[in-house]
């Protein structure tokens, strides 16, 4: 059915007006606007005030000239019409023809509104996305910096506690040292959580694949958590199906982290009863297998309305401040499981406990029965004089820690360079068996110094000296960056003293064997 507007006859949608050069109306026909002879058209609407300037442009023209204006909003009293207007200027005066296309233009308006709005919305979303990405980048760089700033003093604390533990301590001192170590390790674990969640969210975490034994991993948990259970007066049982593949291909670090976080969580919220870890084969087809893990506890449990948010970041449903944590543990678990393309479910009953059931996919090597490669052992080559090590480090506490550790071993002489220039100076004057290179140094960083050592000197003693990078920056890809710069190995702060000694021994032994 046509609207009232559309139903008007065409002649009712037009108006013909004749005016003199001064705007005075001499003739009008039509019902669009209430106009009378003798009125000034210029006063009817400001649009018509353009006419004098057009007359000026054409005052010397003898033929008539048409000007067409489309889509002009004209209003008379409260009625607005959208019209096309034709002005014909001749030596006799001006003819004005107005065509009312309000209906047609209103329909176009709706289309234009939708089109422009969608473009502006898309742009707004684009800007929002850009803003969020910049914010995320800032957050990640902030976390990376904070990580570095916290880990540096933590390295010194943990290192000196380890040294302190090996001295003669009375019972109380031993207990205090143990508490300092425990709390420092806890702080270190919290930083690891922060870095992990930051890496996961920025998509920087990569899955690495290696061959490892799930059964050995589970036995390791059995050993560790039996002690935890014993200390807390709980029972802990670990069982697995024999049919699980002996060796699988997957990201052992992440699998360890997932199960460790879940076990840690179970023990944290269980005061009486037991915690169990079970593993069973879900399926094994061709070179693929899926393993189900179940971590069950008899702890506090989770109320049903909180179950959906259990894997959200910073979710801490238990407000007991004695139970420490950032609320990131389960969020990391969920993100890691997603990254490994696994699946996790949780069921829980308040005061009865929780069950976390997860399935993880792995690869398997068909027909291979060879055992997991064991960590190779190295010994320092025999020689009369001690090994000379250059420690390039600007942090006084770390210098002192490394010096104390190495000198105590009895096999090493240690020189310390505070910065890049000093390091180069030392390297040019003395032959070193190994360099421990901090990466973040004032003026020249550790990567640049390494490149210089590797490329600038023709002397093989200098150019081929083993270099181990060490830093508080545990960003993904840092190891690769070090190797690319020419280093032989990499260690993060805080480090286990045995790890550092192992890496130093390994590099010196390898160099001697060449």
């Amino acid at each position, binding site marked *: 059915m046509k609207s009232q507007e559309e139903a008007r006859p065409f002649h009712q949608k037009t108006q013909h007006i004749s005016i003199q050069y001064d705007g005075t109306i001499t003739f009008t026909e039509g019902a669009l606007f209430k106009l009378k002879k003798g009125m000034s058209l210029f006063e009817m609407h*400001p649009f018509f*005030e*353009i006419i004098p*300037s057009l007359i000026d442009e054409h005052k010397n023209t003898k033929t008539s000239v048409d000007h067409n204006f489309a889509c002009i909003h004209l209003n008379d009293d409260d009625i607005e019409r959208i019209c096309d207007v034709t002005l014909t200027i001749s030596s006799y005066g001006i003819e004005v023809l107005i065509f009312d296309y309000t209906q047609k233009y209103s329909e176009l308006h709706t289309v234009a509104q939708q089109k*422009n709005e969608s473009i502006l919305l898309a742009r707004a979303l684009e800007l929002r996305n850009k803003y969020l990405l910049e914010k995320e980048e800032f957050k990640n760089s902030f976390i990376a910096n904070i990580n570095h700033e916290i880990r540096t003093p933590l390295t010194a604390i943990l290192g000196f506690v380890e040294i302190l533990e090996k001295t003669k301590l009375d019972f109380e001192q031993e207990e205090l040292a143990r508490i300092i170590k425990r709390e420092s390790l806890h702080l270190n674990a919290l930083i690891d959580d922060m870095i992990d969640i930051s890496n996961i969210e920025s998509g920087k975490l990569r899955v690495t694949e290696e061959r490892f034994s799930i059964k050995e991993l589970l036995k390791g948990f059995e050993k560790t958590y039996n002690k935890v259970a014993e200390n807390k007066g709980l029972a802990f049982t670990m069982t697995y199906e024999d049919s699980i593949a002996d060796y699988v291909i997957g990201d052992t670090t992440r699998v360890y982290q997932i199960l460790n976080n879940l076990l840690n969580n179970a023990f944290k919220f269980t005061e009486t009863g037991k915690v169990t870890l079970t593993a069973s084969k879900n399926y094994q087809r061709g070179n693929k297998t899926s393993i189900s893990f179940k971590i069950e506890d008899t702890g506090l449990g989770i109320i049903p309305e909180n179950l959906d948010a259990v894997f959200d970041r910073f979710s801490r449903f238990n407000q007991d401040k004695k139970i420490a944590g950032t609320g990131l543990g389960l969020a990391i678990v969920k993100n890691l499981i997603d990254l490994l393309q696994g699946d996790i479910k949780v069921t829980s009953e308040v005061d009865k406990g929780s069950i976390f059931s997860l399935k993880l996919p792995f690869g398997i090597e068909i027909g291979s029965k060879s055992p997991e490669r064991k960590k190779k052992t190295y010994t320092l080559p025999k020689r009369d004089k001690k090994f000379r090590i250059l420690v390039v480090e600007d942090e006084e506490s770390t210098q002192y820690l490394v010096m104390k550790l190495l000198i105590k071993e009895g096999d090493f002489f240690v020189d310390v360079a505070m910065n890049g220039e000093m390091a180069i100076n030392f390297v040019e004057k003395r032959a070193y068996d190994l360099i421990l290179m901090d990466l973040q140094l004032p003026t020249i960083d550790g990567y640049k110094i390494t490149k210089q050592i590797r490329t600038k000197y023709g002397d093989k003693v200098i150019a081929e000296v083993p270099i181990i990078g060490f830093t508080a920056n545990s960003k993904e890809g840092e190891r690769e960056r070090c190797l690319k710069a020419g280093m032989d190995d990499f260690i993060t702060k805080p480090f286990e003293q045995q790890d550092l000694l192992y890496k130093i021994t390994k590099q010196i032994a390898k160099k001697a064997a060449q």
Partner: protein
Amino acid sequence: MTSSKKVVLLGHFGVGKTSLFRRFIDNAFSEDYKVTLGVQIKKKVVELPNGKELSMIIWDTEGHTDIEDTRKSYLLGSHAFIYVFDSTREETYKNINEDLAYLTNIHSKVLIKVIGNKIDLIKEKTAKDQLKALNINVDCFTSAKTNKNVHEFFLDLANELTS
């Protein structure tokens, strides 16, 4: 007698031409975005420092991403063009120098002013740096929302048109 000058607002859609128009004419502002179809025309009489009056007839045209799509009839008999862009959206100003060259080419005697609107959404220094990098000269940064520089700009323009 009050003289009159025709001033045309030009620029991309969504840059705030109608908001500037409404802010100047009616001292009003609305967050709702309503597309302008064709052109709406209103006038405002301003008092000049010399005591005289000027009737500014403002043509608020529909926005186009390409200036050449603007109906040429809207530009006839103009005394000034105000090219408005959105200070937060580069696509509304990155081709500004080409657009101004086009306008100068077809209307060499018309005064042209460039306005960076929505300056309440971005730091003025950031906007200036971005425009400087693109070699774009801006006459004024405005905010129709907060009324920053709107009336001052039109009054300065009125002065320039009558001097």
